[in-house]
C-alpha cells in the first residue's frame, strides 16, 4: 500500500469498526422488529458507507460483499420479501466476515478472505430463493435436507454431461457437505470425502473449486455435483460416516429446468410481496416516531476522535502548567507583588477546571464495551438452543479509557459463563416453573469512587456442595478445609486457578481457563470481583472497579525528608501511638489494635531512608494498611494529608522495583513515590 493510503488506514479502520457495530446492533433490532423501515435504512446506510470506504481503499473483497448485502437490503427495504431468520443469519454472517476482513487488514496484512459462499447466498436471496443456511439446519427436521437447493450455477457442458449420464441410467446429485465447527484438518477431510466420492461416481464440479478446497479456502461447507449410479441414501450414508462431517445435504440434480432459481422465484415472489406490503401498511403510523429517534441518535453522536496518547500529552501539559503556576505564586509571595498574586488566584481556578475537564475527556461510557454483547448473547443463545433476554443498564456510566480497554474480556467470560452454565435449557426452566426465557442482566453504576458492574442471571445458581466436591477432587483444597467452609466461601472457590465446573466441556466455556483469569484481570485493574448465588434462583457476579487508573486518592506522608504517597484504597485508619505501645513478639515489632495483633513496619528502615535526625520521637504516627485480610501498621514521621494524585509510570529502567508502585508529581513539581503496600506485608 502506498503512503497516501497508509495515512487513511487508521481512519478507515475506526470508521469501519463503528459501522460494523451499527450493523450488528441494527440487525438485532431488525430481528426483533422485522418491518421497521428506519432500522433497515440505517443498516443500508452503514453497509453503503462501508462499501464506499473499502472501494476507496482498494479492498475489493469487502466492497464486493457489501455490494451484495446492499442488493438484498434494498429488496428488504422495498418490501419484496420480509427479513426472516434465514436472511438475517446470512446478513449476520456477512457482518462477521467483514469484521474478520477488517481485523485482517488492520494487522497490516493484505485483504484476504473467501466470500464466495456468502456472495452466492446473498445472490440467491436477492434472486428470491429461500436462503439455505447451515446454522438454521439444527432447527429443521432431518427430512428437510432433501429440500435443499443447490446454489451452484451449471454451465452448458455440466448440464450436457449430467444429461448424458442420466441417459446411461446414472443420476446427477447436488451435494452440500458441512464440516463440524472447529475442524482442524479441513484439507484432510476434503481429501477423504473426495476419495469416497470417486469410489461412488464422478465429481463433475465443486464450489469452491477443488484446488481451493484442498488449500482450505472455504468456510465449513462446500457443494459438489456428483454423477453416480448409486442411490441417494447410500451416498449420504457413506459421506456421513467420514469423521468431522457435520451434515450432508443431497438432492437430485434437475438439469432440465435450466437456471434453477427462476421457477422458485416466480412461484414464491407474489405471496411474499403481499405479506411484505401488508406488514408495511400496519407499521406506517409508527414511522414518524422512529424517524425522529433515528435523527436524534445521529445528532447525539457528534464527536471528534482523538488519539489517547494526545490526551495523555495534554494531561501532562496541564500538569506542567499547574507546576509553573505554583512557581509564579512563590515568586509573587517572595517579592510581595499583590497584583501578581491576585492574577494567579484567578489562573488557579482556570487551571483546576482545565485539569478536571481533561480528566473527564478521558472518560468513556461503558456502553462502548457493552455494545457488542447483545450480538454475542444472541449467537450463544442460538448455539446452545436457549432463549435468553439480555438486559443492559447503565451504559452511560463512564470509566477511564484505559479501564474500558481492559474490561471487555472478563465481561465476555462472565456472560458466557452465565449463559452456558447459569441459565438452564428451556425445557428444564419450564419444568421448574420458571419463565422459559432466561434473563441475563448486565448493569453498571457509580458507587462512590468506584464503578460497579454486575452480571446477574436467573439460572440455576451455584451449588456450594458441588464446588466443594470439585475443589477436593482437583486437589485444590483438602476435604477438611472443604468441610470448614461456609457456603459463601465455597462458592468463591470458583475463582481458584485450575477450577472449571462444567460437567461437559462445551465449546463456549469451560476450557480450563476460568474465573481465575477474570479475577486476575480485574485485580490487575485495581478492582475486585465477588459472587453471590442462590441455588435455583441464579447468580450475581459483581465487579468493582476504580473510576480511573490514572488518578487515585492517596495519603501523603513524610519520612525524614522524603514524601511518599499511600493509596487510600489500602488504608484502614491512621492512629498515633506512644513509643512504648510497641511490643515485640518473637523479635518482631507489633501493636495491639482493638484486640488484633498488627505487625509494625518502620518505613524509614524498610526504604533505607537516610537518617537526618538521631532523636526518636515519643509520639508515632501509624498508618494501618491492608491487603486482603492482612494488615500492617506503617510508622511514618508526618501525615501531610489526603490528595488526588496522577499516577505516572517509573519507566522501564525502574520497573519491577520492590516496594514502589509508581510515582506522582506534587504541586511543587517534586516527584513523590507511591508505595506498593503489598510489598510491606
Amino acid at each position, binding site marked *: 500500500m502506498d503512503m497516501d493510503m497508509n495515512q487513511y488506514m487508521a481512519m478507515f479502520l475506526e470508521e469501519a469498526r463503528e459501522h460494523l457495530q451499527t450493523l450488528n446492533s441494527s440487525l438485532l433490532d431488525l430481528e426483533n422488529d422485522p418491518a421497521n423501515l428506519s432500522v433497515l435504512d440505517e443498516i443500508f446506510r452503514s453497509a453503503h458507507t462501508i462499501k464506499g470506504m473499502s472501494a476507496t481503499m482498494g479492498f475489493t473483497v469487502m466492497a464486493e460483499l457489501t455490494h451484495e448485502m446492499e442488493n438484498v437490503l434494498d429488496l428488504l427495504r422495498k418490501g419484496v420479501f420480509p427479513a426472516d431468520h434465514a436472511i438475517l443469519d446470512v446478513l449476520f454472517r456477512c457482518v462477521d466476515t467483514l469484521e474478520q476482513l477488517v481485523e485482517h487488514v488492520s494487522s497490516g496484512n493484505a485483504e484476504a478472505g473467501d466470500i464466495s459462499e456468502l456472495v452466492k447466498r446473498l445472490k440467491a436471496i436477492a434472486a428470491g430463493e429461500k436462503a439455505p443456511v447451515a446454522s438454521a439446519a439444527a432447527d429443521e427436521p432431518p427430512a428437510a435436507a432433501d429440500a435443499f437447493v443447490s446454489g451452484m450455477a451449471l454451465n452448458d457442458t455440466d448440464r450436457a454431461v449430467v444429461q448424458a449420464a442420466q441417459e446411461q441410467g446414472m443420476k446427477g446429485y447436488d451435494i452440500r457437505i458441512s464440516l463440524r465447527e472447529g475442524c482442524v484438518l479441513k484439507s484432510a477431510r476434503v481429501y477423504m470425502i473426495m476419495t469416497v466420492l470417486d469410489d461412488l461416481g464422478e465429481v463433475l464440479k465443486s464450489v469452491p473449486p477443488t484446488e481451493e478446497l484442498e488449500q482450505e479456502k472455504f468456510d465449513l461447507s462446500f457443494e459438489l455435483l456428483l454423477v453416480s449410479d448409486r442411490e441417494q441414501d447410500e451416498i449420504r450414508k457413506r459421506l456421513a460416516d467420514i469423521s468431522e462431517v457435520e451434515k450432508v445435504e443431497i438432492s437430485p440434480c434437475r438439469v432440465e429446468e435450466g437456471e434453477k432459481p427462476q421457477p422458485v422465484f416466480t412461484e414464491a415472489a407474489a405471496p411474499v410481496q403481499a405479506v411484505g406490503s401488508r406488514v408495511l401498511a400496519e407499521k406506517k403510523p409508527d414511522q414518524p416516531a422512529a424517524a425522529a429517534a433515528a435523527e436524534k441518535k445521529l445528532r447525539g453522536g457528534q464527536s471528534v476522535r482523538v488519539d489517547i496518547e494526545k490526551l495523555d500529552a495534554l494531561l501532562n501539559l496541564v500538569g506542567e502548567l499547574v*507546576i509553573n503556576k505554583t512557581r509564579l505564586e512563590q515568586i509573587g509571595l517572595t517579592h510581595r507583588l499583590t497584583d501578581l498574586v491576585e492574577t494567579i488566584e484567578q489562573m488557579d481556578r482556570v487551571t483546576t477546571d482545565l485539569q478536571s475537564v481533561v480528566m473527564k475527556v478521558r472518560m468513556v461510557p461503558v456502553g462502548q464495551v457493552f455494545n457488542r454483547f447483545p450480538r454475542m448473547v444472541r449467537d450463544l443463545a442460538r448455539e446452545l438452543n436457549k432463549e435468553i433476554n439480555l438486559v443492559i443498564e447503565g451504559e452511560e456510566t463512564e470509566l477511564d479509557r484505559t479501564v474500558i480497554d481492559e474490561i471487555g474480556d472478563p465481561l465476555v467470560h462472565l456472560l458466557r459463563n452465565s449463559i452456558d452454565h447459569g441459565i438452564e435449557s428451556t425445557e428444564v426452566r419450564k419444568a421448574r416453573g420458571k419463565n422459559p426465557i432466561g434473563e441475563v442482566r448486565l448493569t453498571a453504576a457509580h458507587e462512590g469512587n468506584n464503578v460497579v458492574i454486575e452480571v446477574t442471571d436467573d439460572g440455576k445458581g451455584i451449588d456450594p456442595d458441588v464446588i466443594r466436591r470439585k475443589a477436593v477432587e482437583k486437589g485444590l483444597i483438602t476435604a477438611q478445609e472443604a468441610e470448614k467452609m461456609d457456603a459463601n466461601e465455597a462458592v468463591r472457590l470458583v475463582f481458584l486457578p485450575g477450577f472449571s465446573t462444567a460437567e461437559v466441556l462445551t465449546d463456549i466455556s469451560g476450557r480450563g481457563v476460568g474465573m481465575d483469569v477474570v479475577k486476575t484481570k480485574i485485580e490487575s485493574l485495581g478492582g475486585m470481583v465477588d459472587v453471590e448465588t442462590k441455588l435455583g434462583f441464579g447468580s450475581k457476579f459483581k465487579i468493582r472497579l476504580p473510576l480511573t487508573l490514572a488518578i487515585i486518592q492517596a495519603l501523603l506522608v513524610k519520612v525524614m525528608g522524603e514524601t511518599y504517597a499511600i493509596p487510600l484504597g489500602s488504608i484502614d485508619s491512621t492512629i498515633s501511638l506512644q513509643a512504648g505501645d510497641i511490643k515485640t513478639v518473637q523479635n518482631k515489632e507489633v501493636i495491639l489494635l482493638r484486640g488484633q495483633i498488627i505487625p509494625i513496619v518502620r518505613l524509614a528502615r524498610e*526504604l533505607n531512608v537516610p537518617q537526618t535526625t538521631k532523636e526518636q520521637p515519643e509520639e508515632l504516627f501509624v498508618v494501618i494498611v491492608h491487603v486482603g485480610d492482612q494488615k500492617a501498621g506503617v510508622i511514618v514521621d508526618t501525615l501531610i494529608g489526603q490528595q488526588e494524585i496522577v499516577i*505516572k*509510570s517509573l*519507566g522501564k529502567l525502574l520497573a519491577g522495583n520492590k516496594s514502589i508502585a509508581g510515582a506522582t508529581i506534587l504541586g511543587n513539581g517534586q*516527584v513523590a*513515590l507511591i508505595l506498593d503496600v503489598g510489598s510491606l506485608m
Partner: protein
Amino acid sequence: MAEMVFGEQEQQFVVFKLASEEYAVSILQVQEIKRMTDITRVPHTPDYLQGVMNLRGSVLPVIDLKKRLNLPENDYTDDTRIVIVKTDETAVGLIVDAVSEVTSVRKDQVELPQAVGTGGADYISGVGKLDGRLLILLNLEAIIGLQSEG
C-alpha cells in the same frame, strides 16, 4: 555502536566534564540539557541511580554519571547539568559536572576502545583525539544498562 555513530564521516558530539576528564555523547542521542533540579531518591536501587526527576510532567530516572563510572565525587555546583539522553525509547537523565560545547569529530580521529585498553571499556565506544584533547565517547546503552549490575 561505534559503527552506528560513525555511519557518516563526521558526527556531532555533546561534550561535558566529569572531574578533570572530557566525555562526549552523540548529539543524536541527546534530547535536552537541564539545570540541576530536585531529584527524588528511589529505594532499593543501585547507588549510581540518583533517583527520579520531573521533566514536564513525566518521570525520568537520573543517573549520577560519576558514580556510574567510579570517578571521584564532589558536590553539585552551579555548573552541574542533567543531560537528558534517549536510547531505545527510554529517556534517562545523566548528571555531569558541566556541559562545555558541541563539537564535530571525524571518524579518523577516533580510536576504538580495544586499542586504548582501559578498564570498564564496555562503557566506552571510542576515544576521540582533537588537537591534543581526549574525548571519551560513551556507550549509552551499556551505561544505562537495563540489566544493572550495581
